[in-house]
């Protein structure tokens, strides 16, 4: 029981990271209907920028405290957002309104570019970082087994929830959010009504990248090591999460992320670590067989 509770906490912390990345997938999918395959690598870039920032800070002799983490988060968000914007501008915007598979291939190309660019620029070896947030909060104790939530996990959950809250406010309560939703429904009509659709799409990529960079920072803090290849698997998992939740649905992305995190953690804890990805994907396939548009996705009714 205690073990299960511990796994639940671990799973939620991991699921939050997936959820943050998944939001980026689902937003881009919602607005231009493409799988932004490079999004996982944007997450990786975010993690690297955080890493570099942390190293800079520690070289500057500033002891890492909440202020430092906040600063790193902001720097990483800004620069990663610039990456997200550039990727859209270079690889996707010229293909707007074109053949459906063209942006997908372009995105796969961009994913290869980002991965190898970081590998060339920062080296292929894994980058370790000292634990920045340490400490445990014991929340339950008994039968010789203690359930504890590490401060790190608490930070992940709190930061993620805060970021998601700000983000939800942004897309539901502001003019920008309204423009985004309008573009989602009907881009051509939104354009006719005076919404700058190119700009709205750019902002979508910027927001998605910023959220991915938060996920990257959290990943770095949680695991302490990153390399140029982390984007692929995290990206695939997050995309799986987005699809599981119903692609295009923002709450669905977070829910899907949580589910994937929980499945992975519980499967590793009770069955085998090796097959955790198989379990994740198998559950995705099974879900889609019975709910072809995911858990919270709008049922696509094709009018005959």
């Amino acid at each position: 029981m205690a073990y299960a509770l511990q796994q639940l906490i671990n799973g939620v912390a991991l699921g939050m990271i997936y959820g943050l990345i998944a939001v980026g997938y689902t937003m881009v999918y919602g607005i231009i209907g493409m799988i932004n395959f490079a999004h996982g690598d944007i997450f990786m870039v975010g993690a690297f920028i955080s890493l570099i920032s942390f190293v800079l800070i520690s070289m500057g002799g500033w002891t890492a405290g909440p202020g430092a983490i906040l600063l790193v988060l902001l720097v990483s968000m800004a620069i990663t957002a610039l990456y997200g914007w550039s990727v859209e501008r270079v690889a996707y915007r010229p293909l707007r309104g074109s053949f459906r598979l063209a942006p997908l291939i372009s995105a796969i190309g961009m994913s290869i570019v980002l991965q190898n660019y970081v590998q060339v620029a920062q080296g292929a070896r894994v980058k370790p970082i000292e634990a920045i947030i340490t400490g445990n909060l014991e929340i339950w104790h008994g039968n010789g087994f203690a359930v504890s939530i590490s401060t790190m996990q608490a930070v992940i959950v709190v930061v993620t929830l805060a970021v998601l809250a700000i983000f939800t406010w942004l897309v539901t309560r502001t003019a920008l959010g309204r423009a985004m939703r309008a573009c989602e429904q009907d881009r051509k009509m939104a354009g006719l009504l005076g919404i700058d659709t190119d700009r709205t799409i750019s902002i979508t990529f910027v927001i998605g990248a910023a959220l991915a960079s938060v996920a990257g920072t959290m990943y770095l803090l949680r695991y302490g090591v990153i390399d140029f290849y982390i984007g692929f698997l995290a990206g695939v998992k997050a995309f799986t999460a987005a699809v599981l939740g119903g692609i295009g649905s923002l709450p669905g992305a977070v829910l899907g992320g949580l589910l994937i995190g929980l499945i992975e953690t519980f499967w590793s804890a009770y069955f085998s670590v090796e097959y955790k990805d198989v379990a994740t994907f198998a559950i995705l396939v099974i879900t889609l067989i019975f709910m072809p548009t995911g858990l919270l996705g709008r049922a696509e009714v094709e009018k005959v």
Partner: protein
Amino acid sequence: MSTANSRFGVPHEGGVPHSDDGVPDPGEMGGIPRVGPGPAPRPPLTHALRDALLAALVAAGLFIPLVGLRTDVGPGGGGLMIRTRWGDVAILVGIVFAARLLLNLWSNFRPAPAPRSAQRTALMGRVGTAVAPALLALAIALPFLPGTTRYGLDLGILVLTYVMLGWGLNIVVGLAGLLDLGYVAFYAVGAYSYALLSTTFDLSFWICLPLAGILAAFWGVLLGFPVLRLRGDYLAIVTLAFGEIIRVVLLNWVSLTGGPNGISGIPRPTFFGLSFSAGGGPGSFADFFGLEPSPTHRVVFLYYLILGLALLTNWVTLRLRRQPLGRAWEALREDEIACRALGINVTNTKLSAFAIGAMFGGFAGAFFATRQAFISPESFTFIESAIILAIVVLGGLGSQLGVAIAALVMIGGFEAFRDLEEYRMLVFGGAMVAIMVWRPRGLVSSRTPSVSLGARKAISAELVGQGR
């Protein structure tokens, strides 16, 4: 209007700045020209400069942290150290600035837009009829051309393997319009089937090859069933997941597949029972034909083997396209609901596309296993699926010739840039983006009708469905 004049006329260099002349978005960057209808803006030099400066600024923002600040594990394995590389950043930013400026100026001088796609379609059709036989003749003659090295033949085998995989996937994606991101799974199933059958039961290549194909087709149907109801990107992620599941299972089922160590000592193919052993000896190919034993024999044999397999794929595909089944695939790509209303069994049609596409992937896998004599899960990662899909899309969905050319360009080009070492994949990915931006519908984008009453007319890509 200045826009209309400047399209054909002299650019307004140094002239009066036209404030209405399509000022570019602030901060445009990158090396890609605008694509789209209507006249592109023709900024005068000042605007070109300003735009290039903004691009350079963005580039600086991108490159300063990741290129300028290189992190390395410090001496003694302690924490990370930072090494600055401002020189590299300056060079990169300079390149972006220059490229953007040149691009802006070029768009100023550029003549009227490219010819209409209908003309291009007709032109491509004419070129295509000449190119295909020429390529085929070259492929057949390659081993006997003077100057063909062992390396050249190996490269030829590699390219042909991808041509075959591309043609196989083309059935699923190009004809039936089903987006498959896990095609490598069937390649893997074929390779492992061949490896296990031949090492365990000691069966010959010619028995294992069809078995590998059948097993792959079986897996194709197995994948096909759950995804029948899915559309578009849901289909994409499930096929991707399927590919990953197969790879992870191959990696972890150590007792069967050898896990990460893979399977080695896979028997080489024989020429109707004649082996290609290096030392010659009785029962070998060289001995039977009275030739000097040479390792080249095997390479030439493998070359013709994959050429034959690829041509078989092509022949079957072309044949099926003109048959009810192939037409039903294309109809499915165009409109599934109409297919149902016409009494076409959509389920069977989809499954047959998956099965036949998978079968050819399985053949290619079996060939790969026998050629390498060693296979491991490393050869069957997602990136392989992505490359095969890229070949199909870059070539032009549904076009056999386009796929062959794309495989030649992508795989041949990748090998040609061998000297770039770690930059090679970077260039490869960049090329994928650039080709897509240049030709979103692929190299050969028009569709040839499968049947006609009069003269066959190519169908422009704009009308052809994109699948789901």
